[in-house]
């Protein structure tokens, strides 16, 4: 360090020990120091004083560190009457305690019980966001901070008004006046969007109308800037008004506000909500919102005939388009929604058309990429490969031999089980017997593999995966977890990756998308940590399964590339490679090149047929292809494929297994598309009943079934959405 600087430091601190008004003269007396050093210290002492002054000023204007006020005082504000209570806290009428203005304000205090890091953060965000927002129909933010008792508070322009819906009802506003108010609301939301701010909790209770008819949007409690990235997606919201993507905890966009506006419009014009009212549980609300089995506003209960007539057609369509479960089906912006309402008011044709059920079903299913399952054969190949790598000592070789025999045994048993005509289990519920055999094997593992935890883990992985693929989730879970407990992830990351991947797939097939994604990420991380020690086939299966969590085409493409590479590594005539090629076709299809995609998938299927794996893979690929053919309108081909695959799946899989259910619903969807509505209703009811019994967590499949059921019922009757 510079010796001069050292002297500066020394002198600076000595000076600080003197009283402030003596420092200057003391410094002048220190003639032993270089004048330059003294000048520097003088300047730094001045800066030190300035630092203190600026700090004090900052503290004074910051309510967070203000002097402690008495009773219910927040900064310069004094609370009065309690105006309301919400999810985030309480709202009081407030006025400035220092008498500077007679201004009345609404002061929102966050409940202390909610003082988590997250909600505190949200509270601050609300303040920061609103401070930027100056729009005629949005309540202004006046102040905000943290009270002396640590409760954060916001002070907003007090709007002496009435909830939008109550206002409309009390004044018995005609439809047109309601629509005009709604357009003002749209303009306010649009203004917020232009400022890159989402509201996220738009509902009539957050829209107030004052005595002179001015509308104000309040409570940006759930608001978020659009550009802050996906820091969090779960926000406080009102289930009945929250969009399906919000309910699912997915990223929220301007289209979620379009949804909130649509629901508000629904209530304004019909006096009720399509779902989520009455005694329904939040769960049911979610189901209905996700399924989009929405009653048109004109069909809402309790409307008189004149109002019904006013809503039927355009307004029904506008509302239904705004509250479509898939964001992509909604209006692309608030502006577009407002434009259609405007067009309706001017009796011009609106852009919203009747919700096209077939299209919706298609989109719904398009989002759902079921992994191509390659269970049995691959698992057993993996078993052999894994054992091969583990062989080191003579003892280990003996153990390996034993487990290989077990693997052979399983292959044999399962092969017999799946063989359609000649298996010994043919006449008496083959799959149950296969399962019994595997369960028996699992029970024997601790004995067979005594003292060989790694071997046992290896076999648990195989057995667990097979059990899962056959639909015995509970036993699969137990085996996989037991395996995971036996394996040391640091010593053998490859095996841990495999087990973790199978567990994630189990979550996926159960419908737990988030836990599945977490699991897959962890498994992929472990696979990387294995640095090539993971057999290509095992890694291939993992990547194939994990690819279902891809959230963008780019990500899916990256997975695919890895699948193809690993597939080639295993062999061009391997089921893995065929599956990867099938996935390639799947992605081509989803990119919009349907014909080419179908061709690729058909080719991959015939490859798989030529390899002749166990029949299960075959059946699964068949129904997945059937879905694509169906979506492309090749109903006859789709029907043929479904019918080919069903017997094999039914024989091999336990009732309620994911693939089996998806294959079944594909058949039911086909009925609808073939126009056989009457025929579809009863099987759909049975399907839904079975689903809630066997796969209670599978919201996606349930939503799909409900959608189809609504369609089956509606198509038979006039007046329903076409």
């Amino acid at each position, binding site marked *: 360090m510079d010796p001069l600087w050292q002297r500066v430091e020394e002198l600076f601190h000595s000076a600080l020990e003197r009283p402030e008004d003596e420092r200057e003269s003391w410094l002048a007396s220190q003639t032993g120091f270089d004048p330059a050093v003294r000048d520097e210290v003088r300047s730094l002492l*001045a800066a030190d004083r300035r630092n203190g002054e600026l700090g004090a000023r900052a503290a004074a204007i910051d309510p967070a560190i203000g002097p402690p006020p008495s009773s219910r005082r927040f900064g310069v504000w004094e609370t009065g009457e309690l105006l309301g209570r919400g999810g985030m806290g309480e709202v009081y009428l407030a006025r400035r305690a220092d008498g500077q203005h007679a201004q009345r304000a609404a002061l929102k205090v966050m409940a202390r019980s909610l003082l988590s890091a997250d909600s505190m953060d949200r509270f601050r965000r609300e303040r920061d966001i609103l401070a930027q927002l100056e729009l005629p129909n949005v309540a202004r933010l006046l102040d905000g901070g943290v009270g002396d008792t640590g409760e954060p508070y916001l002070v907003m322009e007090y709007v002496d008004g009435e909830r939008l819906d109550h206002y409309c009802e009390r004044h018995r506003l005609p439809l047109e006046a309601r629509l005009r108010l709604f357009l003002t609301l749209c303009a306010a939301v649009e203004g917020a969007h232009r400022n890159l701010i989402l509201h996220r909790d738009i509902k009539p209770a957050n829209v107030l109308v004052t005595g002179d008819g001015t509308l104000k949007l309040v409570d940006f409690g759930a608001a978020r800037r659009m550009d802050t990235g996906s820091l969090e997606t779960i926000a406080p919201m009102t289930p009945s008004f929250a969009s399906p993507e919000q309910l699912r905890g997915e990223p929220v966009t301007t289209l979620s506000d379009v949804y909130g506006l649509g629901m508000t419009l629904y209530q304004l014009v019909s006096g009720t909500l399509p779902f989520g009212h009455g005694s329904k549980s939040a769960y049911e609300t979610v189901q209905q919102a996700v399924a989009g089995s929405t009653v048109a506003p004109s069909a809402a209960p309790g409307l008189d005939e004149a109002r019904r007539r006013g809503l039927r057609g355009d307004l029904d369509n506008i509302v239904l388009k705004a509250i479509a479960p898939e964001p992509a089906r909604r209006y692309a912006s608030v502006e577009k929604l407002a434009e259609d309402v405007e067009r309706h008011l001017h009796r011009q044709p609106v852009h919203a058309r009747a919700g096209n059920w077939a299209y919706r079903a298609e989109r719904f299913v398009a989002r759902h990429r079921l992994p191509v399952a390659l269970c049995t054969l691959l698992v057993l190949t993996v078993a052999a490969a894994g054992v091969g790598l583990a062989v080191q000592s003579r003892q280990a070789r003996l153990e390996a031999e034993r487990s290989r025999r077990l693997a052979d045994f399983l292959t044999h048993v399962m092969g017999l089980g799946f063989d359609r005509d000649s298996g010994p289990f043919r006449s008496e519920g083959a799959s149950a017997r296969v399962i019994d055999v595997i369960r028996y094997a699992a029970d024997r593992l601790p004995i067979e593999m005594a003292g060989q935890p790694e071997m046992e883990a290896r076999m648990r992985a195989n057995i667990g995966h097979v059990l899962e693929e056959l639909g015995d989730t509970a036993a699969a879970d137990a085996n996989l977890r037991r395996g995971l407990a036996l394996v040391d992830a640091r010593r053998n990351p490859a095996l841990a990756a495999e087990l973790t991947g199978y567990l994630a797939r189990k979550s996926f097939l159960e419908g737990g998308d988030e836990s599945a994604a977490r699991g897959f990420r962890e498994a992929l991380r472990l696979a990387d940590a294995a640095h090539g020690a993971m057999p290509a086939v095992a890694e291939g299966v993992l990547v194939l399964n994990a690819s279902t969590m891809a959230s963008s085409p780019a990500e899916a493409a990256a997975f695919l590339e890895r699948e193809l590479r690993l597939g080639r590594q295993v062999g061009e005539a391997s089921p893995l490679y065929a599956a990867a090629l099938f996935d390639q076709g799947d992605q081509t299809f989803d990119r919009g090149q349907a014909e080419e995609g179908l061709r690729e998938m058909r080719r991959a299927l015939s490859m798989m047929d030529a390899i002749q794996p166990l029949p299960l893979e075959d059946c699964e690929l068949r129904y997945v292809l059937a879905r694509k053919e169906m979506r492309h309108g090749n109903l006859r081909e789709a029907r043929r494929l479904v019918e080919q695959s069903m017997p094999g799946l039914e024989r091999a899989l336990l009732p309620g297994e994911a693939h089996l259910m998806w294959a079944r619903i594909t058949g039911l969807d086909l009925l609808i598309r073939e126009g056989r509505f009457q025929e579809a209703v009863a099987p759909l009811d049975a399907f839904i009943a079975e689903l809630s019994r066997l796969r209670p967590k599978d919201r996606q499949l349930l939503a799909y079934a409900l959608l189809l059921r609504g369609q089956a019922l509606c198509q038979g009757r006039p007046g329903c959405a076409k």
Partner: protein
Amino acid sequence: MDQSIETGPAADGDITRLLRQWSDGRDDAFRELLPLAYNRLRRIATTRMRCERPDHTLQPTALVGELYLRLAGAKLGNWEDREHFYAFCARAMRWILTDHARARASGKRGVELLLPLTEDIRWLGERAEDTFDLDRALSRLEEVDSRKTRIIELRVYLGCTADETARILNLSKATVDRDMRLACAWLCRELRPGE
């Protein structure tokens, strides 16, 4: 993607090695370390910067501790490495925030990341250009007195207390306090020259 920590290329040992190299003064080790923790630190930065006081709710030091555990693994929980890691994170935060301020200044939209304030420099962050200016001032301070730069980094960017700072830099608390006082005066002179 909650777990977007890039653990890929660097094995556990690498982090420790790089940390040691960096704290021994090898500056290029910083560039190698940064990608390992970038995403998580960026997240800490954005969540952090929305609250304006370091004493509320979010504790970056705790978050950084957790990050260290996830990056390096408990088995490397050598206390010294851990301390180096805090110092590194403070430097990385400085880099991230300054980079962000630069992007904003050049017209790219983004959240306004406010500096976390220590009680010692409350006025810091009142001006939009403070983030940027602070970085430049610290670079100048570094030439005069690198220890004080480290202290400021820990206190301002990571919200460390004086005690934590003393432990991380292996100094007495009295030294940290003295250094802080002088450094604050120095910064005040640089950022708020005689008005």
